[in-house]
């Protein structure tokens, strides 16, 4: 071990992808028993660096040292052998397997070389969970566990393979504030026992709360390494983006007008036929933002799908612009003035191999001026695209390139531009800034507030509590398919919302 107790070090890492220098002379080191946060926007090169450390890519130049010794990592097998474990953003678990089965997957304990010894695994799992305060039942089926517990299973998986260096890729993205607190406790527990953690994130608050050191990356380069004491959210954001960023959304008082959307005792089933939206009622007025807070998987997705005509409603009514449009397909809803920024932009919002111009008329292609008598009008479609690209500042070489070539933020701008370009009375935005960089988030937030101020009703669904709090005039909390409570956004605290999201009942 070196004098600073550096367990893992990357020196001068350079990785070139076609057209992108993903890592440019990156230096990074991890000390024994520390939490080192790696902060940066999407495309900053964090994931590339981690994939190099984890052996999924190989660097073009530069070296990696493990405990001071140069090491060549060519596969995840090598990295596991070197004691490096990674918990990916999307869990690599088999839902129909038990916790123990998932943990031993790929590293099975067997008797006579072929019979699985699940008992031995279960015993080891219990040992590990006791040792690190990770409460998990080895016999439980992974698919039935809450997300926070699934994440623990992923962590135990790495510990089971004797990892002493842990890479956590955006671990809090899927957690409630309380679950995140739990995770932070576990992370401290781990570091106290000599595990070193690399914590990848783009959430500034978390970084300041938990990291020992923070390294900020931008455009493939390391901008600097700081400690939480000597920095602030504003300073970190500036480092990430390269310019001053407005973190708080500047918005005046809302001027709520008439009701544009009324949802009355709506029930919706999921694909298994389970009732996941249970008698939900609320209304959205013109010129206000109603935020729906809640941990993912509490029925928000199905609620929005039902409201936008993508999923049938089981019972209840939806009145939009004074008309009963319950169960109507998307087209009449769009024509009545509903704009929808969908949760999964690549699945629902875009046709990736279509051009930017075609995507900008994806739901208006059939009507004038874009089509006449069933014949497409390329001039009108191109003109529309040029206008929107300029107006919404979409960074694209031309309106004719495939939208798949654009960055996530610009893809989202294509959707927002399209949805806001036709007469809108109600905007349904579901996770509108998920996975976007700070600059794009800033832009989309301003756009949402601008729509509100123009008298559009906005229904905002987001798992990011900060986003809900920044944009909403009123906040409804969804838990287990029901709206637990609806409150004035100015009169509620983050902590209170977090409790309701986790299932606490409001007092009144």
């Amino acid at each position, binding site marked *: 071990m070196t004098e600073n107790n550096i367990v893992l070090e990357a020196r001068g890492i350079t990785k070139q992808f076609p057209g992108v220098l993903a890592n440019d002379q990156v230096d990074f080191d991890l000390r024994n028993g520390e939490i080192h946060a790696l902060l940066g926007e999407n495309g900053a090169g964090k994931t590339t660096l981690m994939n190099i450390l984890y052996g999924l890519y190989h660097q073009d130049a530069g070296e990696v040292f493990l405990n001071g010794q140069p090491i060549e990592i060519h596969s995840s097998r090598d990295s596991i052998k070197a004691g490096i474990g990674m918990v990916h953003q999307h869990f690599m678990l088999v839902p129909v397997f038990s916790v123990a089965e998932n943990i031993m997957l790929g590293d099975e304990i067997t008797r006579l070389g072929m019979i699985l010894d699940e008992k031995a695994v279960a015993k080891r799992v219990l040992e590990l969970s006791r040792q690190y305060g990770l409460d998990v039942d080895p016999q439980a089926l992974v698919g039935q566990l809450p997300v926070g517990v699934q994440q623990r299973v992923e962590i135990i998986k790495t510990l089971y393979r004797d990892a002493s260096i842990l890479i956590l890729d955006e671990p809090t993205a899927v957690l409630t504030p309380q679950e995140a607190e739990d995770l932070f406790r576990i992370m401290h527990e781990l570091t106290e026992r000599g595990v070193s953690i690399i914590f990848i994130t783009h959430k500034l608050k978390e970084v300041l709360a938990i990291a020992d050191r923070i390294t900020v990356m931008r455009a493939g380069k390391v901008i600097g390494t700081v400690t939480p004491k000597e920095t602030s959210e504003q300073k970190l954001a500036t480092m990430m983006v390269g310019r001053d960023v407005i973190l708080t959304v500047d918005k005046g008082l809302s001027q709520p007008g008439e009701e544009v959307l009324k949802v009355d005792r709506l029930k919706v089933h999921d694909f298994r036929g389970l009732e996941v939206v249970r008698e939900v009622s609320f209304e959205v007025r013109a010129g206000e933002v109603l935020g729906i807070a809640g941990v993912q998987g509490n029925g928000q997705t199905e609620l929005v799908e039902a409201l936008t005509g993508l999923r049938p409603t089981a019972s209840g009514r939806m009145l939009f612009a004074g008309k009963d449009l319950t169960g109507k397909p998307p087209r009449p809803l769009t024509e009545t003035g509903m704009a929808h920024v969908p949760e999964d932009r690549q699945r629902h919002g875009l*046709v990736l*191999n*279509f051009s930017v111009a075609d995507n900008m008329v994806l739901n208006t292609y059939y009507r004038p001026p874009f089509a006449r008598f*069933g014949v497409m009008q390329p001039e009108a479609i191109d003109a529309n695209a040029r206008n929107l690209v300029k107006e919404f500042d979409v960074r694209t070489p031309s309106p004719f390139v495939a939208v798949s070539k654009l960055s996530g933020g610009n893809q989202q701008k294509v959707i927002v531009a399209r949805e806001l370009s036709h007469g809108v009375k109600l905007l349904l935005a579901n996770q509108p800034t998920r996975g976007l960089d700070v600059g794009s988030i800033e832009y989309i937030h301003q756009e949402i507030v601008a729509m509100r101020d123009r008298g559009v009703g906005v229904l905002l669904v987001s798992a990011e509590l900060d986003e809900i709090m920044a944009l909403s005039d009123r906040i409804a909390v969804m838990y287990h398919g029901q709206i637990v409570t609806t409150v004035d956004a100015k009169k509620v605290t983050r902590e209170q919302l977090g409790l309701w999201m986790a299932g606490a009942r409001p007092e009144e």
Partner: protein
Amino acid sequence: MRQLAGKIGEGLKNSLPSAVNSLLVPLLAVLTAVVLGGIVIALAGGNPFLAYVGLFQGAFGNARAISETAIWATPYIFAGLAVALAFKGGLFNIGAEGQLAFGAVVSALIGYALPGWLGFDLPAIIHIPFAILCGGLTGALWAAIPGFLKAYTGGHEVINTIMMNYIALNLTSFLLNGPMKDPNPNNVIARTPVIAESARLAPLFEGYRIHWGFLLALLVAFLVWVLLWKTTLGFEIRTVGANPDAARYAGINVKRTIVLTMALSGLLAGMAGTIEVTALNHRHELGFSIGYGFDAIAIALLGKTHPLGVVIAAILFGAMRNGATRMQFLTQIPVDVISVIQALILLFVAADAIIRYIYRIRAASERVVLTRGWGG
């Protein structure tokens, strides 16, 4: 060897304009298949150069050869367009063979029986289009069934079109051996009577067999292009094909579009059979069309599911089929070698990773969406 191949790939890529670049893989697939086919010919004891000279002479050597190549290419164009259109809509129509057979049966029936039913002779200007229309619509209906099953029950169109092929081919066999069999006492073959003069598409030139059906095929290819890229219906078909979830989000009736896409595909396949009856054979005979519907899959893939590409690929396949006789005459190599070459072409186009590896072409980021996964 790969060094050389890499140079060829590099050279072609640099010399071609970018629009042509997407044709690189099909071109190289054909080239590679021809080289490997040459090796097969040599192993079979023939002279590959002589064989290919024969193939070319037989296909394009003189006016008659060109006329015959066009005749071969005509059903290939229709059937290839059928499969390509379905691909654009995200559907894999393996049933062109059956749709084609039914199209042929019905147009033959209209061709020989309609004047009798009506009790008077029809003018050709009505009889020909009517026969073609009925045959095409039969194909459309036949293909709409698996389309309907796909859209409303999720039954996979690959399985269902294959099954529908068996039904179509056996039903055709029954009809041609039974109710529709040529009643001429000298006839022992399973075939229909000859169609009326008024139902026959004329040859283009005196003394050659090339007929108006070839021009019709080119016109239809153009119309398919217009449909797919210039109309809202085409936009809907392509959107459903590329991303059905986004199509639903955009308010497109995905189920209706799937049924319609299959019906249009079947219409084109049915026309392939119809043209063979009205322009060439003047009757339907059991077994005349075996394989058109399957070759059409290779043609659609080789043509990158683009109408122009399909026309070129269809002419290539037609030329190979037509030139094979001359090749056999010159080298005594059996015509079956052509099937080997065609199979190799299909293999290389379908598994384009092989071609990209041999010629060191980087995978294009835009990928042709052929079909979505099983049960998708």
